[in-house]
């Protein structure tokens, strides 16, 4: 184990390197580019044995990764924002083909107007593509999650792709101390990928052919859903093993912070969780019963886990760093649906924050908690969906 100071992008590249990604398809986009640059350097220096493809678009990057995966190789790519949405068609393809492609996505806003700063709309709008979605809080988590994702995705009970979101600049370009696990230990934790049905001239299969309504199409789709249902329990097992091997503990779909006796709980995903934790610590000292749930996985959506974690909360504020126009924040929608029909469900309000990379500070979060308490006191939600600090 070596400790190094590195950015989230470099941590992502290390995650792919330690996982011994065999085919890497690379296309540059700010603020992701450093991930593929670093991987190119690893390959050039002989530190990573991989086929490195300079593809001409993110669309081809994903197509090449899918095909390489179906030929039996472990694959990696990285993208962001416009690149991710360009891939959209192939994201559906990757899950439909049951390929364990792992991808880092630097969460960035979508144009126009051009904006290269953090937002989660890029990944949220891929909600229904059949990908497992992680949102990281730290660079260490980025590295570790990539390694664990391969274990998870390649598991015969899962066989689905995963994207690991890291917030633009707050993680991608911010340096932190990161433990780089020993390669030998990673090799032990993550053995070589063995595809169940690779393209093989000695066992020729036609893969992906037409399936009519009365044939198997609905069954193929249902099996993706079943695999998704197995993701969280499987992840819990893998994280337990990871803890034993590497000494770092992850807590499945959710991270609970001071929620035990909390009256008001905020829900957030991504790097802003650090700011919320800081605010919780400040407010706790003032005697306020506040807590935080960090959503680590958005797909599959951890409904049961959230309902359990919120069973004693009186008020829930959901922070969405994305928005579904004509409706509300994505996490808010999903959480409300999960809470439907539960007994004593808490009051719930949506806060739209940090759009296009607008800074989220402890002051912002303090005001959000304050508003939560006001609503709770009045037993009335003032505005169900509030765009915080909007100048119009």
């Amino acid at each position, binding site marked *: 184990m070596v400790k190094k100071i590195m950015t989230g992008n470099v941590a992502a590249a290390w995650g792919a390197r330690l996982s011994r990604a065999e085919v890497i398809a690379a296309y540059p986009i700010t603020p992701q580019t450093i991930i593929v640059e670093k991987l190119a350097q690893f390959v050039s220096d002989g530190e990573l044995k991989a086929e490195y493809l300079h*593809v001409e678009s993110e669309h081809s990057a994903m197509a090449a990764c899918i095909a390489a995966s179906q030929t039996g190789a472990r694959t990696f790519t990285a993208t962001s924002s416009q690149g991710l949405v360009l891939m959209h068609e192939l994201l559906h393809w990757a899950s439909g083909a049951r390929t364990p492609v792992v991808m880092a996505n630097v969460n960035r806003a979508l144009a126009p107007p051009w904006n290269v700063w953090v937002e989660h709309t890029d990944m949220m709008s891929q909600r229904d593509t059949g990908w497992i979605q992680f949102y990281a809080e730290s660079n260490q988590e980025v590295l570790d999650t990539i390694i664990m994702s391969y274990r998870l995705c390649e598991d015969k009970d899962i066989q689905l792709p995963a994207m690991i979101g890291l917030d633009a600049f707050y993680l991608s370009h911010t340096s932190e101390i990161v433990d780089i696990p020993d390669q030998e230990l990673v090799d032990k934790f993550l053995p070589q990928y063995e595809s169940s049905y690779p393209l093989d001239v000695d066992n020729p299969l036609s893969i992906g*052919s037409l399936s009519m309504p009365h044939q198997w199409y609905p069954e193929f789709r249902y099996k993706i859903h079943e695999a998704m249902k197995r993701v969280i329990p499987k992840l819990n097992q893998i994280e337990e093993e990871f803890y034993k091997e590497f000494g770092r503990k992850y807590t499945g779909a959710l991270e609970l912070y001071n929620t035990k006796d909390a009256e008001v709980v905020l829900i957030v995903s991504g790097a802003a969780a650090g700011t919320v934790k800081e605010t919780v610590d400040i407010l706790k000292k003032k005697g306020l019963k506040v807590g935080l749930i960090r959503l680590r996985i958005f797909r599959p959506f951890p409904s049961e886990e959230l309902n359990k974690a919120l069973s004693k909360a009186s008020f829930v504020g959901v922070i969405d760093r994305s928005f579904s126009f004509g409706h509300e924040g994505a996490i808010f929608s999903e959480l409300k649906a999960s809470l439907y029909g539960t007994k004593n469900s808490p009051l719930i309000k949506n806060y739209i924050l940090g759009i296009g990379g607008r800074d989220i500070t402890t002051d912002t979060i303090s005001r959000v908690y304050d508003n939560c308490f006001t609503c709770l006191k009045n037993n009335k939600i003032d505005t169900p969906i509030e765009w915080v600090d909007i100048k119009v």
Partner: protein
Amino acid sequence: MKRAGIPTEEFIYSGHTACPGCGAMLVARYLLKVLGKNTIMNIPACCFAAIPGTFPDTCLSIPLLYNAFETTAATASGIEAALKIKGKKDKITVVGFAGDGGTADIGIQALSGAIERGHEIIYVCYDNEAYMNTGMQTSSLTPMGATTTTNPAGKKGGWRTRTKKNMMEIVAAHNIPYAATVNPSYPMDFIKKIEKAKSIKGTSYIHAYSVCPTGWRYQPELGLELGRLATETGIFPLYEFENGVYTVNYKKKTKEVLEYYKLQGRFRHLPEDFIKEVQSVIDKEWQKLLYKEECSHR
């Protein structure tokens, strides 16, 4: 084993769902006869995506991967890269097999990328000159004068007036190691070229003439005759581009465009003047090709 110079082994079983007289089927059949058992093929949305059968049936005895419409070359790149890292590439040929729309329109970016990167793949475009699987819509390889469902000939014209994109020139501009046109009406030439493509270190591009009785509106039994006419008129010249050098393989341009056009319902509406215009375009292109051959051999 070969009979009359053609390998006897078959890699496509009977029971496929192609239309009677399908040119794509003949192209695929000859192609696989040469490439043999150790071949992985990938195909996008196109007629051939529907031909091998529905899951779990297949009429192919080689591994076949279906890919998204515009990703044939990127998919073949991914297969090749995976085979390389697994140390299997030397024994296996990777072939992307796409129609004209999947190649010259929606798939051209991925094709350009794959050739530029120099993947060791064979890319075959079976050119039936329109989006035939969706029912005969115009592609950029639909020929001058043809009526299609999106260029329907009407009282005020409406048929396609543009010339075909020259895919051979587009791939040649990438300095591709090997590109060739093939026509199933000339099987020996076809086989020789696929053998060469198989032996090339780097990307090969094969542009295959592929008749379509359903879309071109002619009697299915006329397919091979039509193919010969296409080459004898200079409409579909047989030639190769190898390391910058052009070689025209069949130089007897003895027939008029009209002879080819009049056999097909898709050209039935054309006035005589327009066919003359087509003739002049074909003649010019033929001359250009001969010049290119001459210059590149100097």
